[in-house]
Each structure stands twice: as C-alpha cells, then as structure tokens.
C-alpha cells in the first residue's frame, strides 16, 4: 500500500514546561529518518522531558516504532521522561500487542501528558 501522507515534524520549546514534538502524517521507512533527526536534536536530562504529540499520526511501521523506542531509552538513560500523546486507537492497539504499553506512557492528549509531568 502506498502511504502518501508524508510526514511533518515540528519541535516546540515553550518557556516553561516540557518540549513538545508534533508528528503528523505517515511514519514509514521513507519518512522515519526525519523523525530520527528531530529526536536526535533533543537533549534529555533530569527534568528536560519531551512529549511527542502523535494525534496527527496516520500510519506507523516498524522503523517508526524502533525510532520511538530508541528515543525513549535515550531519555530514560538521561533520567528524563518521553511521553506519547494522542495515538489513534489502531496504532495504540499495535503498540499494545507489541508490549510497548508496559514501557511507554500513553496519554489521550498532549495537555494530559504535560499535566502528568507537572504532578
């Protein structure tokens, strides 16, 4: 199947609170390098967390999943949190079958993820 939705990735760094990476479109082996490059730019550290807003994500293949897992591990190594927000139910289901729900924290919306971090 052709996935023609492309991918947009934008990093928002508000003056307070965690950074927000907004990912929209299809995440496949053609587009994943763009997400990886954006994630590589993010420096993690204690309290320097990241919320990844995936509410605009329409497709996610194995390379996309591997990239998110790698970023999560890098964040964990730096004592930071990487939270996923807004996954659609199909992609959430795939993540759940892969057992990633035990590893990654999912939130319905970026706002909820940000609230969870401020607690």
């Amino acid at each position: 199947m052709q996935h023609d939705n492309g991918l947009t990735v934008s990093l928002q760094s508000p003056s307070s609170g965690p950074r927000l990476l907004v990912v929209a479109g299809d995440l496949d082996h053609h587009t994943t390098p763009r997400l990886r490059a954006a994630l590589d730019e993010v420096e993690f550290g204690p309290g320097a967390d990241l919320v990844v807003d995936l509410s605009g994500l329409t497709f996610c293949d194995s390379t996309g999943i591997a990239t998110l897992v790698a970023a999560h591990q890098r964040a964990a190594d730096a004592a930071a949190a990487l939270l996923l927000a807004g996954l659609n139910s199909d992609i959430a289901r795939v993540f759940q079958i892969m057992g990633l729900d035990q590893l990654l924290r999912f939130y319905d919306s970026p706002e909820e993820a940000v609230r969870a971090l401020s607690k």
Partner: protein
Amino acid sequence: MPLASSAEASRLAAVRRYAALETASGAAFDRVAALAARIFRAPFATVTIAGDDTVRVIAAHGLPPRRGLVESLCEAAVRHGGPYVVQDARLHPHAAGDPAVRGEPGIRFYAAALITTPDGEALGSVNVMDVRPREAGDEELACLRDLAGLVMDEFEVRLATHRTVEVERELRAGAERLARTLQRTLLPPALPRVPGLRAAAAYHPVSADEVGGDFYDLFPLDGDRWGFFLGDVCGKGAGAAALTSLVRYTLRAAAVYDADPHAVLANLDAVLQQEHAGGEAPAPYCTAVFGVLQPDGDGFGVTLATGGHPPALAVRANGAVEPIHPAGGQLIGILRNPHFAQVSARLNAGDALLLYTDGLTEARTPSGSMLDEDGLTAYLAAAGPTSADDLLTTVHDLITALGKGVSDDTAVLALSVPPATRTPSSGSLGAA
C-alpha cells in the same frame, strides 16, 4: 554488390554492436537530412546505414530516390572510406544505368559523408542528391561531415542508453532471483508429518518482488515433543531476509538446548541484541510465537511464549474461537530487559490452532478500520473451519476478500487435532 573482406566483417560487427540502430529513426535524423539538403540547396538527402545485406534508409528528405541507387552509392561511399562525391551520376560506372539516374527523378549529383564510429568503422552515410551535375564545395562537404558526426553522436547516446537499460534489467532480474532464493530459505519446503496432528502453512506475499520478513517452522524436539514458531522480522528486502535467517536458525538451535518457550525467546533476544550492539539506529527487531507440543491422550498439550506478537487463536471443536495468548510479551531484540510471556493450553480432538503475522490483523476492512483480532475471530467463528487445511482456506478466502486492504505479507501456520472417531454405541442414538 556486397562488400566482403575482413575489414568489412569488422565494420559489420560495429553496425551490429550499435544494436540501438535496429530501431534508429526519429526526428533527430529527419532534421539532419533536411539540414543536409538545405546546405547543398539540393532537393534530396538521406541518412543510411549499410548493414550486411541491405542499406537501410533511416531518414529521408524530399522525394526518396529509388532504393537501388541509394544502395549502390551508399555502399560505394562506405567502401571509399571518406567524403564521397559523384559529380555526374551519368558518368559513374555503377550509377549510370540506374533508373533513378536515367529516368525520374533524374539524379545526377551525389555527395556522402561517412557516419564513423570512434574506432573508425563506417556504419553508413549522410547523403545529398541533386538533379543537376555539380561540384561540392569544401564548406558544404565540411558541413556534411559535421552532420554525419552528429548522427554518430546520436547513435552513441542511444547505445549508452540502451546499455544502461540492459544493465539495469539484468541487475533487476538478478535481484529478483536473489529475493526468490532467499525467500525459499526463509520458509520450510514442507512441514513434517506429526503423528496425531495436522499441520498446514501458507505465505501470502503482497509483492512478488519484495522479500518479506515473515517466517515459520515446525520441527521435532527430543522424545515425542515438537517445536513450532511463527514470526515477523521488521523491515523488508535483503537486510530483513538476512535477519530472518538468523532468527530462524537461532530459534531452532535454542530449542535444542532448552525447549522451554520462554527460554527460547530470551535466547533469541540476546542474539539479536548482540547482533546489533552499537549498530546503526533503529535496531531491527522481531515478533514471534514459539510453542512446544506434547502428545497427551487424544490431544496435545501446548506451551506458547510470545514476544510482541498478535494472539494465537484456538478454534475449538464446538466452534468457539478463543485467543491463546499470554499477556504482556514484548518485542524481541530492541528492548532492555524485555518480558516474554508464556501460557499452557490443550488442543483436544477436533481443536485447531492458528498462528498468523500482523499482515492479516492490520489489514483494512472495506469500512477502513483495522481487521484486528476481533475481526479475525468473528470471521473464523462464522466460517467454522474444522481442520488445519480448512483454517488455511478460510484465511485465504479472508485475505482474498480484503483485497487491497492487505498491505503487508502474511504468514499463516495452522495445527489441528483430528476429531475423535466415534463408535456407534457412544452416540446418543442408541440401538432401538
């Protein structure tokens, strides 16, 4: 008159080498002919190639002269080996008797410049003809030579293109052969016969050219136990194929040392982690179900471990479809301290077990939603397959019905225990 000599043989070899000449024609050559005619202020011009038994006119301007004349003059020009001019054809030994010279259109003047390959072989010529005897100026002949050079350049470009296409075609054919060969190594040629069990497997590729990373196997363990597995390596192509081989052989080898399904998956995880330690991100991984079958009465005990894989489905003798799925098994090969879950169940007489890869459950239904485990369960329950072969047919029908909704390869492994053969006395219809 045919040209024949060893030099001619090498010239003809050059003509054949420019295989693209076989289809040589087109606007570029027509323009060359038109330009040649204009430069000489002559009514006729042609571009000709001297093959082994014919002279082919690949472009013509004005009234095309009779073939015989073109042939003899082009041959003469090629044999002459340089710019060739016949000032008055009526005085030329070969041309004087030609009908195109004696009658219409009354060709008198002929000039040709050779189309010569970089290694000096003449392929043919650019020719100009006039109906009055005349001389050819140096400037006109120089232009004619340049035009012949342009024709040669065009041939070179076409030859290079032709070769590139040929090379690409060969590379592609080679890659497809390799893919098919690799594909065969990834799947067992045939499943073994297991006493008291029926087993069937199928592979549904989305594309014939691209190797998927789906794999399965069924093989004997120690004693009367049997091992089986099915899984999916992330990615496609040669890299995924190589990883799939590693996964297959690791699973087989790991089961020899310790067939405990959980231990087998942990072993595979360790091998994959080592394989990609320090490698480029993202690390490839796989999902898999590994199981052990132990004969038990008229059925089998099954112990299953899964790592990040969709649930195996049992189709019970009474038609019920239920997952046999240990909760929480995680992806194999990329997580730190991954958890692999294990569960035990029984396959009784008449029960069947279906293992599949996510190409099936992630397929889109006509409504656009994902089929998912629920959709598959409902389809199986409605179809009511009663054996491994039946299950395979059912899944085949489903994949066919989903059509373009299926976007990834699907491997399917089905196991079933034949129904118990009932003796008449055991039935409820007692003898009256």
